[in-house]
C-alpha cells in the first residue's frame, strides 16, 4: 500500500470541526488550517482570553452547540495536525502554501476539504466608510469575542435573520437600539409560517426576538430604501425612506448587512467549476450533495460552498469527510451519510423560506448614486465604474476590474464584487448570471513581502496507516 499524504481541512468552524472529527474516527490524521487563534469559526467564535462570561451569555440559544463543537475539537488535538493563526494563501498540485507567524510553510495534502465560511454581503451606501459603520457580523464579533459594543445608540440595517439576532443581542447587552431598518416589506415575514413545520424553534425564537425589540420601544421599519449614513468624522445619523416617508435617526453606530456571501477563493484556486446560484445570487463552486466538487479530491462544506447556516455546516462537514473516506477506499457509515443528506435537504428547504422572509434587496443596486463609493479599498465611485462600463463597452466583470480597478484592492472584491456585478448587469441590461465572477488570485489575502522561507516542508510526512 503506497503512502498517501494526509487530508487537509481549511477552516475550523462547524464544518471543519465535524469533518476533522469524522476523519479522525476513521483513523486518518487531517491537517487543519485556520486563520483564527481558537476554533469555532465566526458563528461560534471564542474570545482571546476568558472574559468571565459563560457560553449562554455569549452564544444564547446556540450555547450547547458551541460548547459541543469546542469540546469535540479540543478532544482531537493529539490526533490532528492543527495549525491555528495560519493563512492558507495558495493551492496547487496537492501542495498548500501557508503563512504562519510570519513564516512560510508548504504542506502536501491528499484530499482537500474547504470549509472557508462566509462574510456579510453588502451593497454600497453613501457614508458606509464612516467610522462606526460595521457589518452585522462585525457588530456581533465585537460583542461576543471582544466584549465591546460598537456604540451606545445603534441602528441595525439590512436584511437577514442576523439583523434581528444582532439587534436583540445588543438590546440584551444594555445598548440603546435606535432602530431596526429592514429592507424587506413586513409582508415578506408571512413566509416564516412555512418555516414553522420545518424548524419551529428557530422561527419562534426569531419572532420572540422581534417582539422583544418592539416591546422595548425599538422602532422597526420595513421596506426601507435610500439609506444614507451621515456624519463628519464618524457616524452621527442614518437617513432612509420607509412607508413613503423620509426618516432620519441619530445614532453613534450602525450594524449593516444583507445576509451572507461565501468565501470561494480557494475553491477557485483549486480549479473547481463554478455556476450561478439564484438563491445566493452569486457564482458558487459546483457541489454534489456528498460535498464533492468538480475536481477529484476537493470537497466543499458549509457556508463557503453555499449559504445554509451553522447546523447545515456541521452536517456538510461530516458528509464531506465520509466522501473523503469513500474515495480513499476506506469503510464509511453509509446509513449515516444518508441521514446527513436528509438533514441537509430539510435545512435547505428552511433556507428557501428564510430567503423569502429576508430577501436580498437587489433593487437597491439600481439606486446607487454615482457619487457613492463602490470600492472601499481604493475609493472608486459607482460613477467611475459606470463610466468605465460605457467607455469600454464592458459586459464582463474581470474586464471591469482591469479597466476600473474595481475588485483589485486589498480585499480582492470580497466587499464590492457582488455590487459591481449588480452594477454591470444593470448598466448593460444583462442578467446578473451572465456578467461573470471575479477570478481569485493568490495570495488570497495580503501577506508580508518578507515572509521567511519555509521552516519545514512536510511533503515526506505521510500517513503511515494508508
Amino acid at each position, binding site marked *: 500500500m503506497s503512502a498517501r499524504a494526509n487530508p487537509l481541512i481549511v477552516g475550523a468552524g462547524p464544518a471543519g470541526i465535524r469533518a476533522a472529527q469524522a476523519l479522525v474516527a476513521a483513523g486518518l490524521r487531517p491537517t487543519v488550517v485556520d*486563520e*483564527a*487563534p481558537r476554533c469555532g469559526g*465566526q458563528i461560534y467564535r471564542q*474570545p*482571546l*482570553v476568558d*472574559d*468571565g*462570561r459563560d457560553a449562554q451569555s455569549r452564544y444564547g440559544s446556540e450555547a450547547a452547540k458551541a460548547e459541543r463543537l469546542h469540546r469535540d475539537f479540543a478532544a482531537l488535538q493529539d490526533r490532528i495536525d492543527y495549525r491555528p493563526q495560519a493563512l492558507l494563501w495558495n493551492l496547487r498540485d496537492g501542495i498548500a502554501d501557508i503563512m504562519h507567524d510570519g513564516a512560510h510553510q508548504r504542506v502536501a495534502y491528499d484530499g482537500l476539504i474547504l470549509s472557508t465560511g462566509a*462574510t*456579510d454581503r453588502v451593497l454600497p451606501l453613501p457614508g458606509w*466608510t*464612516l*467610522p*462606526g*459603520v*460595521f*457589518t452585522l*457580523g*462585525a457588530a456581533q*464579533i*465585537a*460583542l461576543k469575542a*471582544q*466584549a*465591546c*459594543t*460598537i*456604540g*451606545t445608540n445603534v441602528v441595525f440595517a439590512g436584511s437577514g435573520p442576523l439583523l434581528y439576532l444582532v439587534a436583540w443581542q445588543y438590546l440584551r*447587552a*444594555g445598548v440603546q437600539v435606535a432602530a431596526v431598518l429592514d429592507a424587506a416589506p413586513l409582508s415578506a415575514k408571512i413566509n416564516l409560517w412555512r418555516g414553522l413545520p420545518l424548524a419551529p424553534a428557530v422561527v419562534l425564537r426569531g419572532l420572540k426576538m422581534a417582539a422583544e425589540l418592539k416591546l422595548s420601544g425599538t422602532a422597526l421599519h420595513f421596506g426601507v430604501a435610500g439609506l444614507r449614513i451621515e456624519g463628519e*468624522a*464618524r457616524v452621527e445619523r442614518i437617513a432612509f425612506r420607509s412607508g413613503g416617508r423620509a426618516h432620519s435617526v441619530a445614532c*453613534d*453606530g450602525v450594524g449593516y448587512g444583507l445576509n451572507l456571501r461565501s*468565501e470561494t477563493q480557494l475553491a477557485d484556486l483549486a480549479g473547481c467549476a463554478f455556476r450561478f446560484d439564484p438563491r445566493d445570487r452569486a457564482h458558487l463552486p459546483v457541489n454534489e450533495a456528498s460535498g464533492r466538487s468538480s475536481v477529484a479530491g476537493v470537497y466543499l462544506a458549509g457556508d463557503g460552498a453555499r449559504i445554509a447556516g451553522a447546523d447545515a455546516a456541521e452536517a456538510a462537514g461530516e458528509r464531506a469527510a465520509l466522501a473523503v473516506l469513500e474515495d480513499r477506499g476506506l469503510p464509511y457509515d453509509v446509513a449515516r451519510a444518508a441521514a446527513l443528506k436528509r438533514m441537509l435537504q430539510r435545512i435547505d428547504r428552511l433556507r428557501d423560506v428564510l430567503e423569502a422572509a429576508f430577501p436580498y434587496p437587489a433593487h437597491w443596486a439600481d439606486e446607487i448614486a454615482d457619487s457613492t463609493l463602490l470600492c*472601499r*479599498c*481604493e*475609493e472608486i465611485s459607482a460613477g467611475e465604474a459606470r463610466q468605465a462600463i460605457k467607455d469600454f463597452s464592458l459586459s464582463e466583470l474581470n474586464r471591469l476590474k482591469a479597466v476600473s480597478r474595481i475588485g483589485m*484592492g*486589498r*480585499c480582492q472584491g*470580497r*466587499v464590492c464584487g457582488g455590487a459591481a456585478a449588480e452594477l454591470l448587469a444593470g448598466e448593460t441590461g444583462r442578467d446578473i448570471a451572465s456578467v461573470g465572477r471575479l477570478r481569485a488570485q493568490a495570495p488570497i*489575502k*495580503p501577506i508580508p513581502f518578507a515572509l521567511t522561507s519555509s521552516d519545514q516542508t512536510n511533503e515526506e510526512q505521510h500517513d503511515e496507516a494508508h
Partner: protein
Amino acid sequence: MPLFHRIARIQKAAIPFTLDGVACEGKAGDSVLTAILCHAERLRQSEFSGAPRAGFCQMGACQDCWVQCEDGERLRACSTPLTEGMRIITARRT
C-alpha cells in the same frame, strides 16, 4: 468619544501601548482594533482621500483595518492580538 464601549473584561490586566505617540492601555484579550477603538474614533486615514476609517468586517476579510506601527510594520488590527509596547500610528503620513 471612542467608538467602542466595553461590557466585560474590564478587570483584566492592562497592556500598555501608544497611539500616535500617546500612552494608552488596552486589556488582556484585546485585538489591536478593540484596543484602539476603545480610545479613538478611527484606525487610519484612507491613502486616497485621507478620510477616517475604523474597519468594517472584523473577521479578516475586508482589509479595511490595516494600521501602521512607528517602525513601519503594518498590522491587520482585527486579527492581531494587542501586545505590550506596540506603537501604533493612525494618522496618514504626509
